[in-house]
């Protein structure tokens, strides 16, 4: 079994205790309590209703689409969906928070305890507990670089629905934390409840971390805020663990703090201590009645839940005979899995999987394109494979054709035909060519027949050369064997 990474300090060994809070922007057309649009990148304050701007007399009305997404996500996390949950006001002043409170769920969240299985590097898995999932509003955004003297406020994000998914403190090193974050991102993308784009901020992560000597009680934790990539989260945890160990080993005490990770300097620094922490004065929002969800509605979304990453991976192994590794790579991202399935349909699935993982993903990586932006779509790639399988082109030629398709466009067949790459499999045609080569190279033939069998490859090379590489190597081999025997 995989042992979590332990850190070696001056005075001994330390282990980490990590829990993550993930803020996932709910994928839906309007805000949590108003009808405003939620498009990313719209011009400042163009998606703000009176409710979002907290104008006097405005009231929130729950968006049932967001509730449905939370129910689906709860199911995907193997969690209990609560029939009754309550929205609370979380009170604090900040210019990006127009109401002076955030509507969130405190004591009674929509989703209770659950779990996910995460995949570790060595192929092992680990079950990580989910404490809760609740719905809340996002705040707006302050802009400090638009005016020499003023800070400006953009309220487009104000009121956008978020799911806060809180894990149990079950992770013991940054690898596990990274695996958990990747798994959650994969799950929300699978069910479509969040687009999972960390660079656009639709998935953000806070990490709670403490250190302890093996077997001891949990230490004092620090919360690292608003981390926007898996890589940074892992680095932040690593840095923070070392920082805490150093403090304790120097005879100090870790202070319970909220800290900010700086990816440029790779360090964390204090935002506020426990003493400075806000008293949020949570209380049930009297503008909203308790959220009642019928058991039928909960069940409906359980039934409609799509196949999740783990299930898909298992199916890929059993249905297509793929290895764990290939199935895992293909199912990590639903779009990749869907692409594979389109291509693999009524084709040699193992061949397709292998080809996609090595050549197709390799190309995407090289040009830093996502699968949606790939100029070669699944059906077109399938056509290329058909040409390999029916012997029209060789696997070698296919790579060149694919590169051409990818960079310049066009279908596989068009490229093969216009460049004359069609494999020559016609036995008569090839036999004539081989005969000519044998006739023209009497000396070599005699050497071969005299026992120098290595020369067989030379004859293959000559034949391929004379056909511009389009000869079917299998057929060439057969003819050469036959004719050279004499």
């Amino acid at each position, binding site marked *: 079994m995989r042992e979590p990474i332990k850190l070696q300090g001056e005075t001994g060994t330390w282990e980490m205790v990590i829990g993550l809070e993930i803020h996932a922007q709910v994928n839906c057309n309007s805000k949590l309590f108003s009808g405003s649009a939620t498009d990313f990148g719209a011009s400042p304050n163009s998606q703000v209703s009176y409710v979002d701007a907290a104008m006097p007399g405005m009231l929130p009305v729950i968006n049932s689409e967001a509730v449905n997404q939370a129910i689906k996500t709860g199911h995907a996390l193997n969690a209990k969906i609560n029939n009754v949950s309550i929205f609370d006001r979380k*009170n604090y002043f900040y210019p990006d928070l127009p109401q002076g409170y955030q509507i969130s769920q405190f004591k009674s969240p929509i989703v209770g305890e659950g779990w996910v299985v995460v995949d570790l590097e060595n192929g092992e898995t680990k079950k990580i507990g989910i404490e809760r999932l609740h719905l809340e509003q996002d705040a707006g955004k302050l802009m400090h670089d638009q005016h020499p003297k003023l800070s400006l406020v953009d309220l487009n994000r104000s009121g956008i629905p978020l799911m806060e998914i809180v894990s149990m403190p079950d992770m013991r090193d940054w690898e596990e934390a990274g695996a958990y974050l990747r798994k959650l991102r994969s799950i929300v993308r699978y069910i479509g409840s969040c687009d999972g784009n960390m660079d656009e901020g639709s998935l953000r992560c806070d990490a709670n971390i403490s250190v302890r000597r093996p077997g001891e009680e949990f230490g004092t934790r620090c919360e690292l805020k608003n981390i926007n990539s898996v890589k940074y989260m892992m680095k932040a945890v690593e840095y923070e663990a070392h920082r805490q160990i150093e403090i304790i080993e120097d005879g100090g005490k870790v202070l319970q703090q909220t800290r900010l990770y700086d990816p440029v300097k790779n360090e964390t620094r204090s935002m506020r201590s426990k003493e400075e922490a806000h008293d949020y004065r949570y209380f049930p929002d009297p503008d909203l009645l308790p959220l009642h969800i019928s058991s039928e509605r909960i069940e409906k979304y359980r039934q409609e839940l799509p196949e999740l990453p783990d299930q898909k991976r298992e199916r890929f192994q059993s249905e297509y005979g793929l290895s764990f590794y290939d199935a895992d790579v293909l199912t990590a991202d639903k779009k990749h899995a869907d692409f594979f399935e389109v291509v693999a349909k009524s084709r040699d699935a193992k061949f397709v999987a292998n080809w996609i993982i090595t050549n197709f993903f390799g190309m995407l990586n090289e040009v830093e394109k996502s699968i949606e932006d790939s100029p070669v779509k699944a059906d077109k790639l399938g056509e290329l494979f058909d040409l390999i399988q029916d012997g029209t082109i060789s696997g070698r030629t296919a790579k060149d054709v694919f590169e051409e398709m990818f960079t310049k466009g066009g279908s596989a067949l068009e490229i093969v035909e216009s460049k004359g790459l069609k494999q020559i499999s016609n036995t008569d045609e090839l036999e004539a060519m081989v005969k000519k080569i044998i006739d023209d190279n009497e000396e070599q033939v005699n050497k071969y027949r005299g026992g120098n069998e290595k020369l067989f490859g030379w004859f293959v090379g000559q034949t391929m050369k004379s056909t511009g590489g389009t000869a079917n190597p299998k057929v060439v081999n057969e003819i050469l064997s036959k004719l050279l025997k004499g």
Partner: protein
Amino acid sequence: MTKITDLGVVETLDGLNKKDFSSEEVVKEYLKIIESDTKLNAYIHFNKEKSLSEAKKSDQRRSNNNSLPLEGLPIAIKDIFCVEGEKTSACSKMLENFIPDYESTVSSKLWKSGGIYIGKTSMDEFAMGSSNETSYFGTVTNPWSTDDNALVPGGSSGGSASAVAAKMAPVALGTDTGGSIRQPASFCGTVGIKPTYGRCSRWGIIAFASSLDQAGPITRSVKDSAIILQNMAGFDSMDSTSANVNVPDFVNACSKSIKGMKIGIPKEYRLDSLSNDVQRVWESGIKWLKDAGAEIMDVSLPHTKYALPTYYIVAPAEASANLSRYDGVKYGHRSENIKDLEDMYSQTRAEGFGDEVKRRILIGTYVLSAGYYDAYYLRAQKVRTKIVEDFNLVFNKCDAILTPTTPTGAFKIGEKNIDPVTMYMNDVFTVPASLAGLPAMSIPSGLDFKGCPLGLQLIGKGFDEETIFSIGSIIEESANFKYINYED
């Protein structure tokens, strides 16, 4: 000769229907007295052009035989309702120059029914007060005042009650959180009803305490209130706490017999502090209902004494969050001499809010704070549930409850605004129905020894305003209350 402004809602609509006068004439008459008033300060804002142009449009519709139910009727609006294009301040410096470009659901329904906006009435700042003395725009006077005895109109809808009593409007909208319609209605000798919580939409009404706030009319007759409420009520998908229930025929209910109805008299309302006058009027009320064939029964609402402290925890708690949006960032007052963000918040709010509002924000913040939440807010919520249960039990046995609206009649301006607790005691009879979300109406029923009006309160079952309209009509008929003939 009867003046147009002497007419109530029913009579004004009647006159308009019979073409005795046009809406334009009616509106002109009201604008004239609103403009010339120097004593009451009931209105803080009006818009002659808008009112007259709306009146002309109304007359046009009438002449085209397209009359709406309230066609041409002037309606005064408490300054807590957002009225599109009109200053809406909740009588606070914080919103002194705030002009919404949206219309509250309730006022919008009235305009769609043909009502004409006649002006904004004064109120206690953010509806926090029982005397209308906390208005940023100055004290409002009760028309029942005498030269040597200047009385408060009650609050927080003091401007609305004062205006209706003084015949400066046939009807004014109010809001009631803990008695803010019923208590001023009682003090000014007018009818005022707080409907069931959820009956009217709160959308577009500046929030004080969201779980308690309800809009309702103040008029000079029970039937007038019924007509107006009929046109205000109804489900609104923009307010999550609005109830999706049918609106029954309130006007019809005003003429229903109350024979055989059971009226509860709660013993917990017989306070030692009850004045003899209030006691006498209450006894009269009981007699009138008995005479009309109702059955009177003693009932008990054992948690009544906890209602006032519960209210003064729940309402400020909600208010402390509701008023957080007034921070100087987006709209409203912003302090000019500020050093930094923190300073902007504290200076803006220090300057923008009056003392009573600050007091309640402090109380509300305190009762929600870590370490105090359980002892105050949570316990208050539990008591609130007990109060609801009290009413549920009593309403298993009776159809409505009769109590005085207030322990005393109107008091002098300046008499009680020194000590907040003395002021809060005014609400002792009105807050229980508020906490339980029940409909309650105050009907003018007599005078105290100083000659000031006293109201009786009817509390009904949830969404059963009909019963209190029926009983209220009997009280009205029996009391034969003489409305004041106020002359400036």
